[in-house]
């Protein structure tokens, strides 16, 4: 079965814009917000959201990246993963409202690892979760606060997120995984 496109570039931009508005709404403005993306594509999305938040609110919003590799519970079950840098903005995260950003929310295990990683670098006041795609099949009690698109899927299907910065094109597709 060929890959089916579920989001075009314009859809992605629209989804991120809406998420940005929702973040500002729920936080009652840009104060104390820190946007942390989960590598690789979550970092790109966090950067875009940070820029949108600054645009909308007129105030710069600190963004950064949070690597979760060392906190995963499946390190021994997959090929070795090389960690990515964690970059926390200068103001730190203590007492802040941290919005974690990832591209696809699936089992929830990555977010579990992210919460542990976050705990080792500081003590946020509030942690929220934003995701471009929520494809379901949660294995942990984790729920996103901001969702670009709910995409019901079967476990054997793959979801591919392409972003211009690293893929050279931009869309989200769903397809049968190669057996």
């Amino acid at each position: 079965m060929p890959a089916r496109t579920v989001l075009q570039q314009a859809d992605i931009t629209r989804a991120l814009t809406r998420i940005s508005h929702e973040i500002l709404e729920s936080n009652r403005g840009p104060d104390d917000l820190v946007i942390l993306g989960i590598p690789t594509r979550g970092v790109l999305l966090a950067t875009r959201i940070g820029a949108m938040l600054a645009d909308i609110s007129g105030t710069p919003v600190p963004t950064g990246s949070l690597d979760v590799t060392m906190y995963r519970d499946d390190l021994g079950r997959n090929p070795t993963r090389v960690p990515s840098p964690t970059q926390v903005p200068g103001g730190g995260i203590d007492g802040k409202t941290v919005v974690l950003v990832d591209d696809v929310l699936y089992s929830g295990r990555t977010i579990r690892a992210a919460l542990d990683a976050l705990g080792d670098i500081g003590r946020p006041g509030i942690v929220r979760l934003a995701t471009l795609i929520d494809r379901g099949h949660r294995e942990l009690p984790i729920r996103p606060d901001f969702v670009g698109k709910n995409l019901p899927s079967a476990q054997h299907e793959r979801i591919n997120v392409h972003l211009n910065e690293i893929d050279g094109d931009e869309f989200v597709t769903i397809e049968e995984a190669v057996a």
Partner: protein
Amino acid sequence: MRHLLSTRDLTRDEAVAIMDVAEDMADVADREVRKLPALRNKTVVNLFFEDSTRTRISFEAAAKRLSADVINFSAKGSSVSKGESLKDTAQTLAAIGADAVVIRHGSSGAPRVLAGSGWIDAAVINAGDGTHEHPTQALLDAFTIRRRLHGSAARGRDLDGVRVVIVGDILHSRVARSNVWLLTTLGATVELVAPATLLPIGIENWPVTVSYDLDTTLAGGPDVVMMLRIQSERMHAAFFPTAREYSREWGLTDERFSGLRADSMVMHPGPMNRGLEISARAADSAQSTVLDQVANGVSIRMAVLYLALSGEQDNTATGTAPAHAHAESARTAAAQSEPSAHTEGR
């Protein structure tokens, strides 16, 4: 990476990857919580057939920062003169359930024998074997050079064009060997300086240049001057006549140090004989990287332990290439093996 036995087996990309992971590990040292959970439930054994407190505590700190359980096994002084003891020790560690064995041994090749023996199915990390290799020392040296040269922009870079001079007892130095292979693999040029008695036969086939004259070599303006520790017992075996003569000819004296470029690095694997191979002024100068080397040693060893102990145990003898160098293949592998790893194409 299944084992780390020598730097000779490392490709440029593998070495750069190890150093890049070490950068991430170094970041952890600056945090409030200086521990990572990555090696929880893993057991690392420091198996030391020779005393080396420095290397042992460096590996111990590295393993503990990754949350591994650490067992220190000092085999020195026990009846470890016959090969069977290495076997017995290995089988004992296998029974204990060691996931990694960090081995320091007086005999060249002992880590390779252990890795290939079938006595134990653990990652073997060479922490110095005889006069053969000391790969983590070379990695930390390269890492130190890279950080000094490139600072926070070091990730992904090699040592292309860096000019390194290594001075001293090359013949007996595992540090020199590991550095020669690694630094040249990373694109550096290496010049060795020593009396002919302390250079191995066949050195003309190494990827280095050789000089007997330290002053001439230093006049060439090297980026890095690495001084090796000189063992006083070498004097009694006619390698050189006296410490005084050695120091005069091949020591980094105050005078030679003063002639160096202000940004030339002075390195030493430690412990130093101040006044013999290196003057106190040189050792304690801002150009000296000696303390950086110690701190970086922990980061490098964290990276090596992490790469050896995380991931599925493959059977690649010495390869270190992270299996997910290509995002696409990793994503496919992850999608097939475990749903939760789906989009983390790293």
